[in-house]
């Protein structure tokens, strides 16, 4: 018997005809996402808030830092002050518009950095498993065991006030959470038959991670990370509220909530506005993330 070592295929027989384009995975996700009215609405709100932050210079009717001792704590609807004035007589609407910049940044930046580091840690631990996984994940668990608010405050307090330090402390809070999700998703993928099959064709770990693991785990990790943006915003606001984040007079929603706290009996509606802004933004991010998750959570 002779070992056949070639495929006797005439090349002309497969003179590559035009391929029918497959709609693919992401178009399916988009189609399902579009059907989810709530998620689409939340996405539009997020988009509007982002645009508002970017074009704050054009949208804000007044200088957010110009104060007026004569016009302190004006109610909503005062001429020239559509959303009232704060305790230093600054235009609330302008401050809320400008505040979106820092608040969004404080929401997104720590989550993004934590997404990068947490994914690397979690995917490595999940993929290589064994003792390496145990060491890495138990270390992560030590951080995870702290309530995130306490950990953020403690780290911020230790590092000192400031935007950079609050971003750093929030990043440290989120890395373990993202790493845990990344690890559990990767562990599932690692034992999938297609990874076994890839290993059986002689592929090394690097190739398997690049071709077979990343594409299947980054989506779910990303969705989880978007749900952390609202948490990050709220924690950042909390840090500012405690005087550990932004410093006055920079407009930032958490800080505004803090400084207006004393005026809660005088102008409750005005004092609540930064809270409303935080609420709307964070719930929109959450609903968007939920929508993404259910759109992506389909076999195939």
């Amino acid at each position, binding site marked *: 018997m002779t070992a056949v070592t070639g495929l006797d295929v005439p090349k002309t027989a*497969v003179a590559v005809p035009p391929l029918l384009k*497959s709609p693919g995975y992401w178009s399916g996700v988009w189609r399902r996402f579009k059907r989810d009215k709530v998620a689409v609405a939340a996405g539009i709100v997020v988009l509007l808030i982002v645009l508002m932050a970017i074009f704050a210079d054009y949208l804000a009717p007044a200088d957010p830092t110009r104060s007026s001792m004569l016009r302190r704590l004006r109610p909503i609807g005062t001429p020239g002050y559509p959303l009232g004035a704060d305790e230093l007589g600054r235009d609330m609407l302008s401050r809320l518009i400008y505040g979106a910049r820092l608040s969004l940044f404080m929401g997104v930046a720590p989550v993004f950095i934590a997404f990068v580091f947490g994914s690397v840690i979690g995917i490595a631990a999940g993929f290589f498993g064994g003792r390496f996984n145990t060491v890495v994940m138990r270390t992560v668990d030590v951080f995870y065991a702290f309530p995130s608010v306490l950990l953020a405050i403690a780290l911020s307090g230790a590092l000192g006030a400031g935007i950079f330090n609050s971003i750093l402390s929030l990043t440290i809070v989120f890395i373990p959470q993202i790493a845990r999700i990344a690890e559990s998703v990767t562990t599932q993928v690692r034992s999938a038959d297609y990874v076994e099959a890839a290993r059986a064709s002689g592929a090394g770990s690097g190739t398997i991670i690049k071709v077979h693991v990343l594409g*299947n785990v980054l989506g779910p990790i990303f969705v989880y990370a978007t749900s952390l943006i609202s948490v990050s915003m709220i924690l950042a606001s909390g840090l500012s509220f405690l005087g550990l984040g932004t410093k006055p007079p920079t407009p930032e929603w958490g800080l505004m909530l803090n400084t207006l706290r004393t005026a809660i009996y005088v102008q409750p509606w005005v004092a609540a506005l930064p809270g409303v802004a935080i609420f709307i933004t964070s719930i929109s991010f959450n609903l968007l993330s939920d929508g993404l998750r259910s759109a992506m959570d389909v076999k195939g």
Partner: protein
Amino acid sequence: MTLTLYVEDAQDRGGAGTPLLQAKALTKHFPLGGGAVVRAVDGVDFSVLKGETLGVVGESGCGKSTTARVVMQLIPQDKGELLFDGEAVGTRALSLKDYRRQAQMVFQDSYASLNPRLTIEDSVAFGPTVHGVPKAAAIERARELLAKVGLDPARFAARYPHELSGGQRQRVNIARALALGPRLVILDEAVSALDKSVEAQVLNLLADLREEFGLTYVFISHDLNVVRFISDRVMVMYLGEVVEIGPVEDLYDDPRHPYTRALLSAMPSMDPDNRTMEAPLAGDPPNPINPPEGCRFHPRCPHAQTVCAKVKPALVATSDAEGARRVACHMEIAGSGHSRAPALESAA
């Protein structure tokens, strides 16, 4: 014009007489902690000849799939040796990567064994690219293979696994396994999850491909009819051990081990006069964590005697079929002490 194969050294090295694959005392135990050990594969010996199909049958949990995974080196064996064409796998003579170009596997779950985020041509082309074939050439080859397994590349190459039926996906998996030009293909319950009609088509495809590419198959299944159709020889496993091995027709016509006999009589018969009237085997297979002493089948065996509970029967050649049949049963071993054992030569 023939396509050159990327595996240059896939030639027959050992000659036709050397089995393509030899497993020697292959053992894989899974520790459970607390000292308990699952003896999934316990000293399995077999060889697969060039160009033949070896069927592997046995109940769930008998170690069929673990054997397959050890043979593929997806999990390392604890003990024992694996020879491919006469050379030990994982040594300098035959590195793991070289071995994996020549031995491939098709899994049972056609969906789980394809990456949902890759088009099927990318999945098929993945193996060759790992071995240094340029992407464009690998894709071209993938399309040719898809055509070979009956999937029109124009219609299917750019599709994703979830857009295909189970039978189509299993064809893709077969194409993927063939992409490296292997000599040995392990089919682990490869047709078990398919509809009967689709199963028949895929079996015919496998038979055609074996013919065309001179493949050697290890065909693992719990379906005795399918194994009979495709195999040249059959190996019966029970609790991590080989109890009987032999040419398919001999084994089906004249099963020698009581377990093989029970397994075969459990097959539904098409003949109304020849129905199975009572369950041939009672109970479940014993726990592989603590397998019975002696012959592992003795607690369920209708012919068990005291010797069976004490001494473990070796897998020995029977007197007939020129030694191609081997059975691990005291009733076949002369002088074993079992009352049905053949008399010793000297006594005769």
